[in-house]
Structure formats: structure tokens, C-alpha cells
């Protein structure tokens, strides 16, 4: 069941000089109860901006949010109800808790704000701590953030997000500042909470492997757009967009079907770093496929903006290679191999 529908979300930022910068460009998706949607993609592509827009920490330039099918208000009670229902967990557990306050304070505050009576407050606080495996809860209530490990702090941040009994949790790189060994613990915790409480979870990450293991669907973002989306395994095992293929091939220690040296010829003549150079040029390319300066498959048609193609099973890709007409024209040679291993 869709909890939060996002339609044509667009966010512009004013720049001191020149035109506005479009960080998120007509992005649509929905968050479903009991499911995790992973959002991966380029650094600076607009992932956090989407999360901040959904959490109403910034006001979108365009588009619509529907919570349980109803449009979201911009002020007053409606906005408050929305904020209660949609909670965020941030990347940095060190910055997101106030060092001057105890764990208990961090949890009591949202409860009080959303009208929980004083009576029974402590029980709820303890139940919240227990639900994030901070047991015995009483021993943590009066601790300060600096007395906790990074993993414990992130648990407190998650408990705080759960305090208002939200239906949606937006987790922006919730484990990237944590150790590998603690990461899985926190992700398993979020996964369990999602199941137990039927939460809709947006999981923003740079870690493709955990995106695959912990989510139902994956969306890949590039330059303000979703370029590929679909069932997690389908996107990871059969990436269809050249950017997704590049992303996978760049994962340390992986043998992926797509070879890096084909996807990303790193050095041009004169030893310049062609990718970084192309990236810069691209920043100014307003029309067409935003990936085309880097794309090994770029064709003439790529100077017009590609539309999403359905590969079946809800696996969608925004790339001309998968357009039936383009494929017909090129004698079906255009589509890149999706899974033949060639790296080995």
C-alpha cells in the first residue's frame, strides 16, 4: 500500500550568478508500507535534497506530495501532521544529537511536542530504547551522547524518529559513518522495525551491496534524475543504464559483468582525467541525456532527452539504447549486454 506518493518533485536552488540550479528534476516515485526503497547514485545528484524536500526541511519548487492519497498542506496543522508521519534519520550520529542533553531528553521531546501526556512518558521512552535494542533501557536514559558509541547514537536517532509513530522513515546514509561490523546491525534493526511496524523506508546510500540486500526496489539517480529503477536484484544483477553499470563496476573488490576500462576510459590524450573533465563539461549541458559525455554508447539521438523505457517487471531505464525504435534502427545491436561476464 502506497503511503507517500511523490509526483514530479522539482527543487531549484538560487545561485549568486547565473540561472537557478535544478538539483532535483521532475522525480516521481512512491514509498510503500512494509517496503524499503533504496536511493543510490552520484554524489551531488540530489538524493539528500529529495529527502529534505520529503521531510519538508526545504520547500520544493514544484511537484506534489500525497500522503495516504491526500495532498500535503504547507502550514499549520496539516504540515504538523505530515511531519509527525514522515521522520528522518541523518548520516552523522555525532552531529544529529545535542551533546548537552541526555538520551531521555531526546526521546521525550518529540513525544511531548506531539502531545503525549506526562503520565506514562517514561514507559514509552524505555519501550522506544528497547525497540532499538538498547537494553536495559533504564541504564541509557540518563546518558549523554558523548558516552555512547557511534552505533548507539544512531540507535538513539532511530528511536527518536520512531517516537511519533511515523509511517515513513527517510534514512539518509544512516550507516556510512559507522563501522562495517556495526553497519549490518543497524541495517538489520531498521529492517526489523520496518517489518514489525509496517514502515515505508527510504534508504539513501552509496553502498550498493546493502542497497540490494535490504531493499525491495532500487532507484539510481544521476544529475537530478532517476535514470534507472526496479526490483533490487534486477537492477543490481542486470543493470541496464550505462551509469548504473559504471557504478557497479567501480565497487571495490567486485568482478562485475561490465568492464571498467570499457565503461570509463580514465586517461585521455595527454593524461588528463577524462571523466572529471567530462563531468565538468556536462554540468553545463542542458539538453539531452545528462550522461552522454561519459557514455561509451552515446549516439546522435542522445542529444534529445531520453524517456523511460519499461524492461518488464517494473524495471525502468531512462536511456535511448533501450528504446524499441532506436534498437530497430541499429539492427538491435544497440542494447548493451546486460549480464555476460567479461571481466574474468
Amino acid at each position, binding site marked *: 500500500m502506497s503511503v507517500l506518493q511523490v509526483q514530479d518533485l522539482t527543487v531549484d536552488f538560487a545561485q549568486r550568478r547565473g540561472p537557478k540550479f535544478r538539483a532535483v528534476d521532475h522525480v516521481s516515485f512512491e514509498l510503500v508500507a512494509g517496503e524499503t526503497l533504496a536511493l543510490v547514485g552520484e554524489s551531488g545528484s540530489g538524493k539528500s535534497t529529495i529527502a529534505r524536500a520529503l521531510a519538508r526541511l526545504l520547500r520544493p519548487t514544484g511537484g506534489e506530495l500525497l500522503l495516504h492519497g491526500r495532498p500535503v498542506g504547507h502550514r499549520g496543522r496539516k504540515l504538523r501532521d505530515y511531519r509527525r508521519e514522515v521522520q528522518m534519520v541523518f548520516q552523522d550520529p555525532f552531529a544529529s544529537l545535542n551533546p548537552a542533553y541526555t538520551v531521555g531528553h531526546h526521546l521525550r521531546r518529540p513525544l511531548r511536542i506531539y502531545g503525549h501526556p506526562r503520565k506514562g512518558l517514561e514507559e514509552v521512552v524505555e519501550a522506544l530504547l528497547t525497540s532499538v535494542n538498547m537494553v536495559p533501557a533504564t541504564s541509557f536514559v540518563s546518558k549523554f551522547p558523548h558516552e555512547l558509541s557511534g552505533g548507539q547514537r544512531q540507535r538513539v536517532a532511530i528511536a527518536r524518529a520512531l517516537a511519533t509513530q511515523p509511517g515513513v522513515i527517510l534514512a539518509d546514509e544512516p550507516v*556510512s559513518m559507522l563501522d562495517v561490523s556495526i*553497519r*549490518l546491525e543497524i541495517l538489520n534493526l531498521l529492517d526489523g522495525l520496518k517489518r514489525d511496524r509496517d514502515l515505508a523506508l527510504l534508504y539513501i546510500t552509496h553502498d550498493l*551491496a546493502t542497497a540490494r540486500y535490504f531493499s525491495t526496489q532500487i532507484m539510481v539517480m544521476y544529475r537530478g534524475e532517476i535514470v534507472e529503477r526496479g526490483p533490487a536484484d534486477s537492477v543490481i544483477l542486470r543493470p541496464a543504464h550505462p551509469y548504473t553499470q559504471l557504478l557497479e563496476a567501480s565497487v*571495490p*573488490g567486485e568482478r562485475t559483468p561490465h568492464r571498467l576500462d570499457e565503461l*570509463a576510459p580514465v586517461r585521455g590524450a595527454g593524461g588528463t582525467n577524462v571523466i*572529471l573533465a567530462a563531468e565538468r563539461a556536462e554540468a553545463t549541458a542542458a539538453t539531452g541525456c545528462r550522461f552522454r559525455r561519459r557514455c561509451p554508447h552515446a549516439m546522435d539521438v542522445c542529444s534529445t532527452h531520453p524517456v523511460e523505457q519499461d524492461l518488464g517487471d517494473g524495471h525502468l531505464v531512462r536511456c535511448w539504447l533501450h528504446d524499441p525504435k532506436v534498437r530497430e534502427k541499429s539492427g538491435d545491436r544497440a542494447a548493451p549486454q546486460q549480464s555476460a561476464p567479461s571481466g574474468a
Partner: protein
Amino acid sequence: MRVQPAAQTGAEGRNDAVLRASHISVEYGGTVPTRAVRDVSIELHRGEMLGIAGESGCGKSTLAYALTRLLRPPAVMTEGQVLFCGRDGAAPIDIMQLEPEALRRFRWTVVSMVFQSAMNSLNPVISLRRQFSDIFEAHVPEMDREARDRRSRELLEMVGIDPSRLGGFPHELSGGMRQRVGIAMALALQPEIVIMDEPTTALDVVVQREILLEIARLRRELGFSVIFITHDLPMLVDLSDRLAVMYAGEIVERAPAEWVGGRPAHPYTLGLQAACPDLLGERRALQGIPGSPPDLRQRLRGCAFAPRCQYVFGPCADIHPVLSPLAPPAAAVIESVLDRDGGKTSKLNDWAVACHLHDRTANPAGPPDELAGDPLGTGGLVPPAVGAGLGVDPTGRPARGQDQL
């Protein structure tokens, strides 16, 4: 991905150390002091990337700061010596003896740091141009405004940020972009040693790879050395020349990076490896290493990893394992390794581990296959020689063989 190591770690490279640290111990003062680094000896070779891996709280950052005299109170180096040998070929300098003026120069022009929280360490309300200029004004006063601007743009380009952002402010950048600015600033003065403390946690893998390649290229060109700290073991294996895995303030395994990628020798290294799920494998329940590192204020008896180790046996509870070289592999395997590796025999001696499983007296059967420390993953190595774990440590000091305080 595989980023080609830039360093020459062949025989000639080995004697060419930029930093030579012996028996370093660091404490954070307090009613009960935290012994964050415990009798660590290591060399940083010229032009190499030395990776330091381990969970947080194991002393990685503290060791890196100690090596470069960047420790701040309440941290105190209670023991040990660090010698620095500059590019200029002058006599080695004992960095603990540097006078204030020399220390200031050392800290800025010889060593630079990309901090763990580079992302948050930029002042959000000061423009990037101003922050770059400050560095140059302080250390290269002869540079004029135009030259400072030009160099700042170059540096931004190098990390893939549009130079037109120079007039902008950090709060307008995404987390990953701020991290890249931190890297650019660390390279601004062309230092000899760059310490990168988890510098890429907020980057996507494509950009991460680009930047690491760029650092590798600069390293080749400018000949600086990098100490790269992270808990992302697969990344370190791909990236660094040598790898040191830290646990509870000590180095528990040290090896040429690509060999550890084949098969590590220490149970903790294996655990770190297993905690990183592979992307394309079967879906499975994912498990980290159960438990957490010990409180470093405590007295540690025996092997500090024992409470979390699935291989724990007889001596582990009481006897402290000392970092000792793995015994040389069988001749046949040496041959094939050398073939593949272009004759870098010296590497064979540089694989050391602190674990009783590799001590033939304590464990006559030798380590289990998965910990055989086999660079080729063939299982063809001869188990280490008698006494490997209890003998003399590679720095020549007699092992204490007892609990360490």
C-alpha cells in the same frame, strides 16, 4: 576495481622509508588512562599508500597522528621514536625533538591531513576562495592573488568540482562535494606525507575511484606517501600497497595489500572481510563481527580479540600473541608468486600476524585453511615455522609473551 599502486615496494623501495616508527605507545590521560596505541612499530615507505584498517576505537587515527606528531592533549606519546627522512636526502630527523618553528613547518609543508569529518570541518560561512587563500597566504606568502586563485581552481578541478564553485560556500555543496574540497585542501601545499582519515565515506564509488586514481597519479608524479585509514577492507586491498590491520591498539596483521585480498591470516581480518557483503553473490543473512572492541582503559590479558574470536583455543586467554612474520611459503608457491609478482621477494618477509593459530608450538596442526595466509588462495603454503607466534618480534625485541598492561 583495482587502482594500481603507485609505489615501488620492491627491494629498493624497502630501505627508502619516509617514516620509521618504533615501539610507539600513546595514552589519553584521564583518571584511568586509555592506552590507544600499544607498542606499535611500522615504516612508511616513500611513495607508498599504507592502509590502516580496523573498527572504530582501535587506535587507527591515534597511530596516524602519533606518526606525524599531530597528537593533541590529552594524548601523550608515552614511548617510542619516529624518524623522518625527507626527500632532500638529509639525515633522518627525530620528530619528537622538533623545536616549535621546525614543527610548524613540518606540520604544514611536510604532512597534511584529510580529517575523518572533512565534510564538517570546513567553515560553512566562509567562501571556498577565502579558505583556500588562507592556506596559501599563511605558507606561501609570495603568491599573489591571481596565482592563489589559479591554484585553487586547479585543485578544485582535480577533485572533480566545477571551478566556478570557488566563490561559493560549503553549505551549498553536497556531503560528498565537501569531502572532496577537504582532499583538495590537503594537497594544496604538495606535502610529502598525506594522512587520509576515512576521507571517502560520503562519496559514491565512481567518484571515489576517480579521486583515488587522481591521488595515485599525483603520488607517482610528486612522490608523496599516503596513510589511508578506513574500515572498508575491500577498498584498502584494492588501493594500498601495504595494509596494517589494527585491533585494540595493536597491529594484528601486516601484509602486502593484494595478498590479504587472497586470504588473510588473522581471524579479525577475516571477520572484517566477511562483514562487507559482496554485491553480486547469493542473498544471505548478513552478519557483522559479534561483540565490540575492548575498552582500552582496561588491562588486556592474552589476545584482545579472544572474546569475539570463533577460533579461540588454549593459549589465547593468557598469552599475548606478538606480531611475527609468517614463515616463508613452500618453494613451489614462492616461484609462482614471484612469477606473478615480478620478483618482489622482499614482500614475503613483510607478512606478519599476531595470532597463536600461526604458532606451531601452540598449534601444531597449523592454521585452518581459511587463515592460511595464502596469497593465491591455493592452500599450497607451508604452515609457519615453529615458534612463529611466541618468538622474537620483527623489530628484534624479545616478546613479552605475557599479558600487556
